[in-house]
């Protein structure tokens, strides 16, 4: 299991290859890559702030919960911080399980958490100035799906 923050662009394909290597008992790897959107020219740079130490620990706790809940074999999360250009990857999530359903669901669960509850603050820079982005109602209801089950 690994959770890391980076202020450098990363290549998702290389992360998938490394994550899949040497697994003889893993039937399924599910991955998600989130990219920065240009929002039709409204966003020229996305700036992401974390609280070093606190942010990794908070994500680590939810990864532990996902490992138990879905019986996962492994999880890798890489999250960008700092200034991110449209088209660059912001987040990479990979889950490994014996079978596909657990891998898919855990990936979905982890992303819902990251979107609404993980300690990041997101600011959009564009021609119209800057604005802080807070979770949408949809992000919040997506996350509560998992509370009821």
């Amino acid at each position: 299991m690994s959770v890391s923050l980076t202020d450098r662009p990363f290549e998702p394909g290389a992360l998938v290859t490394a994550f899949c290597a040497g697994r003889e008992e893993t039937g399924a790897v599910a991955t998600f890559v989130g990219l920065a959107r240009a929002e039709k020219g409204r966003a020229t740079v996305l700036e992401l702030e974390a609280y070093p130490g606190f942010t990794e620990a908070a994500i680590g706790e939810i990864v532990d919960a996902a490992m138990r809940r879905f019986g996962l074999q492994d999880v890798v999360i890489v999250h960008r911080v700092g200034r991110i250009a449209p088209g660059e990857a912001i987040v990479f999530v990979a889950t490994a399980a014996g079978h596909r359903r657990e891998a898919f669901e855990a990936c979905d669960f982890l992303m819902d958490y990251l979107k609404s509850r993980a300690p990041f603050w997101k600011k959009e820079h564009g021609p119209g100035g800057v604005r802080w982005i807070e979770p949408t109602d949809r992000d919040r209801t997506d996350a509560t799906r998992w509370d009821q089950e």
Partner: protein
Amino acid sequence: MARVLLFGRLADQAGWRDRRIEADDLAGLRAALAAADPELGEALAGPGVQVAVDKVLVRGEAVLTAGAEVAFLPPMSGG
């Protein structure tokens, strides 16, 4: 002396993100911050703003030891 960290829009609003402030507890710290900057004091007490002391979320009151790190965290949004 507590180390106070502001994140997200709170840091932009205050014009600083890391400052040392004398306070024995969280209520005293909030009062000191509000006295220096009433708008910031209001924002820190606003909906969805969480507080972490030494990187652990706290609800309500907390005693601050010397050198405690107090972070004010506005609503979070990753991914």
